[in-house]
């Protein structure tokens, strides 16, 4: 098999992929929250995605970040996944399967309710999570982070 033919075929495939890509994302119905002591006030969408996929594990100040997800059947998580990762929750679950079975990591902590997520972020200075945009955070020591594209 000629390597050149393979590289040409690969290039054609890449070009085709770039042409068929069309992302439709719903309006965000969530807000990203961090502990009130966290100096971060805004984050790039790409950085949020990397943290939740453990592609990045530290905050800009070097502290280890701790992410917390909602359960996979949560509508808020579905919106968050589509908007932040650009992928469905099922694709993210497949991503974690690959990580688990290749010995490269385990998923971020999943909690079953927004109240638990808020409490977790409240209790952990390095934590980051998300809840519905309409959920009140007043009772907790958390702050909403501005997400930049």
């Amino acid at each position, binding site marked *: *098999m000629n*390597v050149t033919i*393979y*590289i040409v*075929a*690969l290039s054609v*495939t*890449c070009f085709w*992929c*770039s042409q*068929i*890509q069309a*992302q439709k994302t719903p309006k965000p119905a969530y807000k990203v929250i961090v502990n009130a002591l966290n100096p971060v006030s805004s984050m*790039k969408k*790409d950085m949020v995605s*990397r943290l939740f996929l453990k*592609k*990045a*594990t*530290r905050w800009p100040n070097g502290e*280890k970040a701790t992410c917390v997800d909602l359960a996979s059947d949560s509508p808020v998580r579905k919106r968050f996944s589509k908007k932040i990762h*650009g*992928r469905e929750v*099922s*694709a993210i*679950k*497949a991503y974690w*399967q*690959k990580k*688990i*079975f*290749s*010995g*490269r*990591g*385990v998923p971020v*902590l*999943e909690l079953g309710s927004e109240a638990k997520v808020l409490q977790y972020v409240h209790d952990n200075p390095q934590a980051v999570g998300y809840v519905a945009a309409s959920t009140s955070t007043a009772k907790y020591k958390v702050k909403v982070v501005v997400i930049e594209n």
Partner: protein
Amino acid sequence: MKVRTGYLFILAALLSGTANLPAQVDKKVDIHGFGAWAYGRTDGNKYIGGTNNGSYNQSWFALNVASTPYPNLTVNAQTFWVQDGDKEEVELDFAFAEWQVSDLFKFRVGRVKHPFGIYTEIFDVGTLRPFFKLPQGIYGNAGFISESYQGLGITGSYYSSREWGITYDIYGGGIGIESENPFESLGNGEDDGSIEEGGEEEETSPLRDMIGGRVTVTIPIHGLNFGFSGYAGDEEEADHRHKVYGFHAEYLSGAWTLRSEYANLDEGHEHRADAFYLEGAYNLNEHWQVAVRYDWFDAELDPENVNVSAAPSLLEHEDFALGLSYWFNTNFVLKLSYHIVSGNHFALPEDVADAVATGDLNTTTRGILAGGQFSF
């Protein structure tokens, strides 16, 4: 037998200690697993677990444990049970410790999954691919890959603010390469060159002083990554280096899944091989998926050692496959695939030597594989 009993003992200890634990225990221990069963039937030759009469004897199960006893330290282990035809095996897939200095530098030591191409690290995980079996050209005991190496490794990743990313692995130590040489069952390579009875011969070639690496690049086109892998090591009791390199590309976005790999094996004048596949899958809806795959393999053996002209098809392989899957969710899938195979490197009769001697070696094989795969 002792090794097998040992693994079972470890598993029993794990289960007895964790039977009531959820998958995630105080963020310290994660327990996962995967398994599969399939029925395979062909019109003659044996191929990917299928036989002429139909075989129900293909199943496997693995248990995976990961623990983080210290913030920067992770320990991973996976035990694997497999029944393939009459053969049953229990083996340790991997067991290693990883120390994370940063996202860019993580040190690994132990028996580590072999980072080569797309599928080597998730070799038997059926819920991460569209077909029940991986393309045989690269992944079918042809000498390209091993499931794990034993030694030291460094891995890490870097992502730029412009959505470019790079993930790398550098590793070294020893590795066992599994390969099947159908000519050995003909007696070729033996001093007398006679034809002997028997099926395909599977053997593990240990490589010493092995070094290797893999680089995968993620580019701003969402879901697309590509990379390069390679390794080389000295084959014990041989005067050549076993060298393998390969390219891979993967596109995962929305309903589409596209994967392709090319690999080259070089053992000097004794043995060379190339393999390539292109695999595409499309999700019709949340549950149904259709898939198609073209898989190609070609090998060369030293004509001074092997009488290739006796059965040149034993060096060749081409598989055109169609697949249909029903995904209950990402953890449970039923799969059906139809294969049209040319060549006999991986599709072989029960008695290769007899088929070659009598001129009855059928170079075309058609078969189906149906089964279920799961993970948790």
